[in-house]
């Protein structure tokens, strides 16, 4: 067989290009990590890792950089958002793919795509207009608490709404790819529709559900604008849902203007970014492990 050298060359070039593209993609996270670590190095000259992560004292002017309030604030807001949104997403994905008529599921899918495309600042404004006052006027008084409404709770609620389209989209795709024959098998064995969903389809979907949760977590943990607008941004360790908090992304965004002036502050912000990066990485690595564990069926 004689393949013209021209075609052979083209094949080689394309192969090289795909390799190069893959290499860039693989390199990106490393580049990001190295860049952040390099810039954070200054901070480590005067502080230990333990001090930085577990001290609550944040006074940049005095050279004190305790990230604990920000880490705790971030985790609270994110966990709250996931606790609210994960069950909603799971149940609605099941309904949309298993019970809803085709027309309804089309409408919902379109709505989800629209939600996913709304800029986060819009969610922030909406949160300030509706969620914050509701928390302040109705939710907090129920527990005998006085608050402006700018709180972990508001942040979590706004965030949970923001991540719904992303998690839901993945979940719908996952349930759609489960073959119908599996449901048929379960039904023919005498399972009700819900029993089939609960023990057969959910088991089949489990690795995908975990992946969707991981994706949602990463999005929520890094979300900046909308949370910053409703969470209060007070540097303290929140003790209740109605306390104000100050998540890491908000810290970076709010201190951005000081970045160039003080080298140590710049280094601290880079370290904040590094924490975000590492937490998301660790969380997803853990989930990946669970996914591999559960993928055997």
């Amino acid at each position, binding site marked *: 067989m004689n393949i013209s050298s021209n075609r052979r060359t083209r094949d080689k070039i394309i192969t090289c290009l795909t390799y190069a593209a893959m290499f860039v993609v693989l390199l990106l996270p490393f580049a990001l990590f190295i860049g952040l670590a390099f810039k954070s190095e200054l901070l480590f000259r005067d502080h230990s890792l333990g001090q930085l992560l577990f001290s609550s004292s944040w006074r940049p002017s005095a050279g004190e950089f305790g990230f604990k309030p920000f880490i705790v604030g971030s985790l609270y807001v994110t966990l709250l958002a996931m606790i609210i949104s994960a069950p909603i997403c799971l149940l609605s994905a099941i309904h949309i793919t298993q019970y809803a008529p085709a027309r309804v599921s089309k409408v919902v899918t379109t709505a989800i795509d629209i939600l996913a495309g709304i800029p986060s600042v819009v969610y922030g404004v909406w949160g300030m207009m509706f969620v914050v006052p509701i928390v302040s006027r109705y939710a907090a008084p129920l527990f005998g608490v006085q608050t402006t409404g700018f709180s972990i709770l508001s942040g979590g609620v706004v965030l949970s709404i923001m991540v719904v389209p992303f998690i839901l989209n993945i979940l719908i795709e996952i349930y759609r790819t489960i073959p119908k024959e599996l449901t048929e098998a*379960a*039904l*023919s*064995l*005498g399972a009700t529709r819900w*029993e089939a969903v609960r*023990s*057969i389809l959910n088991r*089949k979907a489990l690795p995908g559900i975990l992946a969707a949760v991981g994706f949602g977590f990463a999005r929520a943990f890094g979300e900046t604008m909308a949370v910053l607008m409703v969470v209060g941004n007070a540097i303290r360790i929140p003790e209740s849902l109605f306390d104000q908090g100050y998540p890491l992304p908000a810290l970076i965004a709010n201190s951005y203007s000081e970045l160039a002036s003080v080298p140590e502050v710049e280094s601290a912000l880079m370290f904040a970014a590094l924490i975000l990066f590492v937490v998301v990485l660790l969380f997803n690595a853990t989930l990946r492990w669970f996914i591999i564990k559960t993928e055997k*069926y």
Partner: protein
Amino acid sequence: MENQSIIKVDHLDLYAGKTHILKDINIEIPKNKLTVILGPSGCGKTTLLKCMNRLTDLTPDIKVTGNIFIGKQPVFGAKTDIVALRRKMGLLSQRPFPLPMNIYNNIAYGLKLRGKYSRTELNDLVEHYLRQVNLWEEVKDRLRSPAVRLSIGQQQRLCLARGLAVNPEIILADEPTSALDPVSSEAIEKQFAALAKDYTLVMVTHVLRQARRIADYVVFMYLGEVIEMRPAREFFEDPREEQTKKYLAGAFN
């Protein structure tokens, strides 16, 4: 029909959207025989089969008139306890779809839905049904490994055992050998021939030779209609209808 019938399809019409898929089907399927539904692809064989245990519920926009009776119980009807009715009918699909569980639980799942069993009873029953499909010797040492790791032929036998475990009267099979290698196909065919003593089998196929080998009765369908239903020997040796003759001569393939 000389035999007692167990499934009676009575003036069944089925529409999917505006498409008329099944047209006035009237057949009676004899008890404890192997009845083959034969016909070219797209003639409505599988749809007819899925009507029998109402898996059509899973497909939106389907409209059914007429009815099917299992014994005396109607399949379509608001008062029908469809879960109980489905339990009377085992199902074998074109490709095996093991439940996302280990081998043992694939059998035990249906048993647990059926009633309460002790650990030992479950163990015995699982072994019994795996033996019934000649799978026990091959899997007895790895009952706890995922069912999807079995070969596709083993999976199909596992699915058969899983269906038998809920103690059905009827087994519905939709081209159960079409994804299998010849050896596994033969194993399933032999199983079917043996099962026909105690169960009513309804099998959809488009493989003429397979129908010839194992059918007691043949329902021949073409374009959504039943053209004829006869004992297998008569059907193949003395086809009455023009379409049947053409099909047997290979005209539709």
